[in-house]
């Protein structure tokens, strides 16, 4: 009854309707700039691209390897600054964008290892707090080293990519396709990575580090690889981000960025690639398109009603906060989660403590 097709690139076997749905989504994304001729919209949707890359990267660290990272934006900053410093008037270096795309990813990965190394022994909340510390320190260092980074002004005049003689300029469409291509490659890559030896090692570490070690998983290299590969995605995202905006400043990489990326993963469903994708897309749309509109609506409503309070109302924070709370309350395991995981998580009854879970 249920006809199934095998997808290429190791994406596995899915039902026909799922394959068609997937195809429709890819087609929709591929054609979006043709459908919507408004450059401003394309630009906003393109910006969802860097956010998705960040979500993919953090998903390796948090979702696959179970290492709670609250300062992931630091690597985004490192990637963006790497490219901005070598491809702008800052030092009058103008390295080419394409090799630097890889270069930024490598530098970010290197810092992933450097910042990951001291945290290897730490678990759970302690790890989260150390990464939070790094997330605060890194942008502050960029802010203070103004001789190299332009301080609070950031670095402007960042070079834009040129693709076989075709300059990207300020037109968002080429950036949109660049993000789309990078995101699609990343998805395929991550999907295969998840089922590779390394991917299984990450999940083993996530479920039980001690047991994984006994099974022959080297926790040091496994964790460092998670940090490095996770950070490399942030490096990629930072590089394209800096090139598209032609400007970066340390304010762009604060705690709320880390938090938003993390909430996309948790919202989507921890450890699930599809979940990360959906969560990332939903939050990007919410933050880049829907919520900014809400402010405009309340403003328009206030103007129409001649009510200054409504005119100046800013519901962005309130709505965003409410969404996070409500989704977590009603679907603590995220929007996408497989059945076994759900069963495991829903056992809790009001009077049962976390310790009780150990009884079964």
């Amino acid at each position: 009854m249920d006809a199934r097709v095998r997808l290429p690139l190791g994406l596995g076997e899915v039902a026909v309707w799922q394959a068609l749905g997937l195809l429709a989504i890819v087609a929709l994304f591929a054609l979006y700039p043709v459908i919507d001729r408004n450059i401003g919209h394309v630009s906003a949707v393109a910006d969802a691209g860097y956010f998705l890359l960040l979500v993919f990267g953090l998903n390796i660290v948090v979702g696959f390897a179970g290492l709670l990272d609250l300062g992931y934006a630091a690597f985004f900053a490192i990637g963006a600054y790497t490219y901005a410093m070598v491809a702008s008037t800052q030092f009058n270096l103008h390295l080419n964008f394409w090799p630097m795309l890889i270069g930024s990813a490598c530098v970010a990965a290197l810092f992933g290892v450097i910042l990951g190394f001291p945290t290897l022994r730490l678990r759970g909340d302690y790890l989260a707090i150390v990464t939070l510390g790094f997330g605060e320190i890194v942008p502050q260092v960029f802010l203070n080293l103004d001789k190299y980074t332009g301080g609070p002004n950031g670095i402007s005049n960042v070079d834009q990519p040129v693709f076989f003689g075709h300059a990207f300029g300020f037109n968002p469409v080429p950036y949109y396709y660049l993000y789309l291509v990078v995101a699609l490659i990343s998805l395929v890559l991550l999907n295969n990575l998840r089922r590779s030896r390394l991917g299984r090692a990450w999940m083993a570490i996530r479920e039980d580090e001690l047991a994984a070690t006994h099974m022959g998983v080297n926790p040091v290299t496994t964790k460092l690889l998670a940090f490095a590969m996770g950070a490399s995605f942030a490096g990629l995202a930072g590089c394209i981000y800096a090139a598209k905006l032609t400007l970066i400043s340390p304010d762009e990489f604060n705690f709320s960025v880390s938090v938003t990326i993390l909430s996309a993963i948790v919202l989507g469903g921890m450890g699930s690639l599809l979940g990360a994708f959906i969560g990332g897309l939903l939050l990007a749309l919410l933050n880049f398109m829907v919520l900014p509109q809400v402010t405009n609506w309340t403003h328009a409503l206030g103007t129409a009603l001649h009510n200054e309070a409504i005119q100046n109302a800013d519901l962005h924070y309130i709505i965003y906060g409410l969404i996070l709370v409500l989704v977590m309350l009603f679907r603590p395991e995220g929007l996408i989660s497989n059945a076994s995981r759900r069963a495991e998580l829903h056992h809790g009854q009001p009077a049962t403590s976390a310790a009780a879970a150990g009884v079964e």
Partner: protein
Amino acid sequence: MSAVLSLVGVETFYGRIQALRGISLDVRAGEIVALIGGNGAGKTTTLRTISGLVRAAHGRITFAGDDITHAMPDQIVRMGIVQAPEGRRIFQRMTVLENLELGAYARADGRSVRGDMDDVFALFPRLAERRSQKGGTLSGGEQQMLAIGRALMARPKILLLDEPSLGLSPILVETIFHVIADINKRGVPILLIEQNARKALQVAARGYVLETGTIVKEGTAADLLADDDVRKAYLGED
């Protein structure tokens, strides 16, 4: 003799996994009842369900005629159903004295607490020596004494003991079982879970055998000790 504590058709779930599949048992006034069974049979879950730490999805639990199926854990303790849980679960960062005081937490009669503490110290002289030591620094046997002593501080109308002899040296096991018998002699009925089925059935009046969430056998302790299946499965005899 009527039952003090009675479970009728109790079913308990952890998520979708059913841990208890219709347990019915009674504990009557003044008796020790042993609950024996293998790992994962549902013994601890039974006690947790009685104490209200997990909710029974179906069935009824009554205590002295009152329905306590849906009561909160603290209410259940206040009614006099007191448990010394598996693994002792003493408060590691509190002193022996503080642990005992917490045992009496639910009691309204603050004045007699001091006297009861002396009784506990009389029962376990080791605890008296270590009264201002942190719980976490005690040895396993001392922790078990503290766990039982703490339960006694609540002046239980019924005592639920979960694996009191687990991990103790043979001498300490003897001591603990003496104390259990001693407590029972004062008129406190006890529901006892034990890995050491032989010892348990030796002090108990009656027993229940639990397998995968169901009671497969019940009877007087003597009958169970004599039962072939029980001997094979739980007493290590061929």
